[in-house]
């Protein structure tokens, strides 16, 4: 099939454009998605193409426009709400957790909320403590929500239509560092599932379990390890809620060792849940306790060298694997 070179940003935009074309109930709403062209230029050009009703700039009022997304979903639309970054989603936490995640249940199955919320996440750009959260794993604690983290072009293109077809609220987290990432994507790329993990690199010595931008750090680490004769498998979780236990356990059963790489702060991060599940489901097949590599437990600092030190990096992953294997 013909492929094209494209960035993650462009693939995200293609996904939006296709969704807007295919279903007139779909509209995009958020801060500066229109005239500004999107804070990360994802929605650039869409206002001109689809007009202000469907590419809807909102005032700064995260709680109201997320809640309005819920209401519009209940009213028969298929809104895509963009929260500029996960950091600001805390202002809408009530609507997300107390409303979007509960209505189906509280109404005894009557009112499902077919809402998609996109947000940028992650650190790495010296944006300091209030602009560098990785809270996707934290949101994954909430029943009623689905949480996905596209790390590849294929996924950022294909997860949106699937999320839109889902009857329940889906939160899509796009890591800031991915937007400029280039690669090949088939020209008619379409929907992908949003509930299975994927093995991105086959290996036998250790399972690197990760998601989002850390996927690429893991792949970099795996390549470096390959040079040392260590054959690491890399599992991209893709969906943080639900977690795909099957794929995770299959990998761990094969390699008997796991390193979880998670940009969230270590304590109470998703890495803990995955580690706990591995121990629960594959305890006797492990050759060593599961290792977690997470962000340091510190609000992300501005200074470059400190920020780098605070985050998981390929080099640290390599070291962690070496240590685990005792090489």
């Amino acid at each position: 099939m013909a492929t094209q070179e494209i960035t993650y940003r462009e693939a995200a935009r293609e996904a939006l454009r296709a969704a807007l074309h295919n279903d007139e109930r779909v509209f995009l709403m958020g801060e500066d998605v229109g005239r500004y062209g999107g804070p990360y230029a994802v929605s650039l050009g869409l206002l001109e193409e689809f007009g202000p009703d469907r590419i809807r700039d909102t005032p700064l009022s995260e709680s109201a426009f997320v809640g309005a997304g819920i209401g519009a979903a209940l009213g028969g639309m298929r809104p895509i709400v963009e929260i500029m970054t996960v950091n600001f989603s805390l202002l809408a936490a009530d609507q997300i957790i107390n409303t979007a995640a509960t209505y189906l249940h509280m109404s005894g199955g009557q009112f499902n909320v077919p809402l998609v919320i996109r947000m940028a996440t992650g650190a790495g750009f010296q944006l300091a403590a209030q602009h560098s959260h990785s809270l996707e794993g934290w949101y994954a604690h909430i029943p009623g929500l689905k949480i996905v983290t596209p790390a590849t072009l294929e996924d950022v293109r294909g997860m949106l239509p699937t999320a839109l077809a889902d009857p329940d609220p889906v939160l899509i987290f796009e890591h800031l560092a991915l937007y400029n990432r280039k690669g090949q994507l088939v020209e008619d790329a379409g929907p992908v599932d949003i509930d299975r993990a994927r093995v991105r690199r086959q290996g036998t010595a250790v399972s690197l379990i990760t998601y989002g931008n850390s996927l690429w750090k893991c792949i970099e680490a795996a390549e470096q390890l390959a040079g040392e004769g260590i054959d690491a498998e890399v599992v991209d979780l893709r969906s943080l809620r639900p977690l795909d236990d099957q794929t995770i356990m299959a990998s761990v059963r094969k390699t008997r060792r796991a390193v979880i790489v998670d940009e969230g702060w270590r304590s109470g991060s998703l890495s803990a849940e995955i580690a706990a599940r591995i121990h629960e489901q594959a305890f006797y097949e492990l050759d060593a306790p599961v290792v977690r590599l997470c962000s340091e437990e510190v609000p992300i600092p501005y200074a470059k060298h400190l920020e780098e030190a605070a985050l998981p990096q390929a080099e640290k992953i390599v070291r962690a694997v070496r240590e685990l294997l005792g090489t």
Partner: protein
Amino acid sequence: MTKASTASSHRDREHHLSLLKQMLRVRRFEEKCVELYSQQKIRGFLHLYIGEEAVCTGLMQAVSADDAMVATYREHGHALLRGIPMNAVLAEMYGKQEGCSGGRGGSMHLFDKATHFIGGNAIVGGGMPVAVGYALAAKLRKLKAISWCVFGEGAMAEGEFHESMNLAALWQLPVVFCCENNYYAMGTALDRSESETNLLKHAKSYRINAQSVDGMDVLATEAASHAAAKWVRAGKGPYFLEFQTYRFRAHSMFDPERYREKAEVHDREQHGPIKRYGEQLRELGILDDTGLNTLEAEIAQEIQNAVDFAEAGQLEPVASLSRFVYSEGAAS
């Protein structure tokens, strides 16, 4: 007080009696709830609307079939008058699967898809953005539906009120914001909650058309609701209604009411909406003892049926606990 029509055509008489009956129905239902609560048939939080019935009764006269309503935890009246069968409402409060929310919601979370009754929200202010969004959908879909957003005056201090009013006004959405100003938010009196106690000024600061109504006068609430609906259906943007009312009972079953004088409550009860309207209808010769007894008997029967229904209802099997977290049939 708004005058009941003296030119009482048969239709007018019917309508007057119907308004009275609706108020009475809500009142008697809740009185029964108190009894059932003390028998522990109903549990959780129970917020009574007693004293405020003229508000939802008047309001509901202007609500059309396609309209949506987003209410609060004090929503028995709205749910009943919107058309959710009393059986289903009471069964819900019993936690039975025949309840309007399948027993999952309880008193604070009455829901009904058929009548677009979108809860029952126990987060103060939490329903406002939802109501705005529903109106946005209606506007985008070019439907005539109105989104009726009900809340108390205490909710107006929340940021979500501000953000929601601004969005609705900015986008000229078909929302009627219905503030049930009963002068207290739990124990917090209005003047301890709002620096500006003239609530219309808030609405106007968003360029939203607003009107204040005697919420103890069902004809006034009815007229104001019709006026608001007319405005909104004409595409002129949102509308804000302040209903000045009073709750005769405690905030919830746990409230010892330390924050107000018994005399104040007693005084307001003398001017209660049902009492007043009943007297008015008697003066007009529309109501007499026989008529009233008939209404009461019908209502008593309906309530008894609802109790029987709820008692006979089934508990959902524990095995299905994890239903309704995600939609059935969908990939989870």
